[in-house]
């Protein structure tokens, strides 16, 4: 699939960017899952003109609106974005490939803590939030991967190259059959369950589940949600700051030509009003850049 502007993220920033880019009559593809957006769990009461509205309803309307303006919505997580010549190549969780002239990054900020006892005290001593960083420290050991979405699947598959055994602990899976097949082929052990405690003193020794079961593991990888903005940006060649924030100018341009960013990925306050404001700027400027107009 080809696009002029590819937008990564179906939260308020991404959808507003899709609306504004599509209004400029360029071909827009917006990718992601609205349920991953922080707005999906919110009741909106502080946005101009809306007294009270459920976040999921606002997102649903936003998707319809973007489609009405001509944007194509692809409800799949993005696994990779790379620069390929003058274009960008985007790969989704079903291995769908999209080529685009400009990219808008609107993946939101990661709030990926599990919030169970043992998590905070064992970070760096068996608890990790980054499989690609830390997989190498778990050669020959048994590890648990916790999560329901594409980041968990990718992490579990990667860890099978290092660990002796990888147990994927999950509640309700929200991942494509394609990724599940890849995980099965990599011999990832699937364990439905709800983690309640990470055990260990000096380092991780086990994982307790709500139903009383205990898994004998030496590593716990917490990989909630979709692949994070930080990792996608790094793979693309952008360098976020240590808090994961992607730097943009007043036109929502990043340090990379034809790459724009908006919403929570660019920093706080993590507010709907800021997200849609930046989304409009990023979408409009990305479309102008494709049409070779001035911002």
């Amino acid at each position, binding site marked *: 699939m080809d696009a002029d502007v590819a937008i990564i993220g179906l939260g308020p920033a991404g959808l507003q960017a899709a609306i504004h880019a599509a209004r400029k009559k360029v071909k827009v593809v917006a990718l992601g899952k609205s349920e991953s957006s922080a707005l999906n769990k919110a009741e909106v009461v502080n946005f101009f003109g809306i007294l009270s509205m459920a976040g999921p309803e606002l997102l649903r309307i936003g998707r319809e609106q973007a489609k009405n303006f001509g944007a194509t919505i692809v409800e799949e997580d993005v696994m990779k974005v790379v620069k390929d010549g003058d274009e960008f190549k985007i790969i989704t969780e079903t291995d769908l490939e999209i080529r685009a002239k400009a990219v808008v990054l609107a993946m939101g900020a990661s709030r990926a803590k599990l919030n169970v006892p043992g998590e905070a005290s064992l*970070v*760096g001593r068996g608890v*990790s939030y980054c499989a690609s*960083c830390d997989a*190498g420290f778990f050669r020959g050991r048994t590890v648990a991967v916790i999560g329901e979405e594409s980041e968990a699947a990718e992490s579990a598959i990667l860890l099978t190259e290092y660990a002796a055994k990888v147990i994927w602990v999950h509640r309700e899976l929200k991942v494509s059959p394609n990724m599940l097949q890849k995980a099965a082929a990599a011999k990832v052990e699937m364990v439905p369950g709800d983690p309640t405690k990470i055990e260990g003193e000096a380092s991780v020794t086990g994982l307790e589940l709500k139903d009383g079961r205990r898994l004998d593991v030496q*590593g716990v990888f917490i990989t909630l949600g979709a692949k994070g903005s*930080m990792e996608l940006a*790094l793979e693309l060649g952008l360098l*976020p700051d*240590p808090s994961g924030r992607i730097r943009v100018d007043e036109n929502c341009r990043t340090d990379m030509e034809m790459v724009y960013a908006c919403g929570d990925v660019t920093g706080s306050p993590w507010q709907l009003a800021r997200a849609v404001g930046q989304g409009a700027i990023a979408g409009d400027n990305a479309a102008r850049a494709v049409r070779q107009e001035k911002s």
Partner: protein
Amino acid sequence: MDELEQIRERKRQELAGESGADWPSEPVNVNDGNIVDFVKRYDVVLVDCWAPWCGPCRMMSPVIDGLAKDMRGKVAFAKLNTDENQKTAMRYTIEAIPTLLVFKDGELADRWVGARPKEDLARRLQAML
């Protein structure tokens, strides 16, 4: 910066120069063979444990470089590639990167895991001086 602060800064830089010509203004690459000597050479040392494939480590690199310049004469900074120096990684039970090991008087005094802002690190290091 007012005049007094400029004089103070000049004095600090002079003292840093006098107290040891080998105060590094950028992080020194250390390895399994020389890390112990390095951490004993200075009162406070921060060792950034990293690996080439680690994205958050790349994010931290300019932060550590900047701190090495800003805190020259007070804190010495080093980098240790955990992939090439697994003995040290095992000795300090490093299981996540970036891990920042902080040594005071040659002994491990603290460890901070994960990417964090420059101001936060500067504040923590200042508290150890």
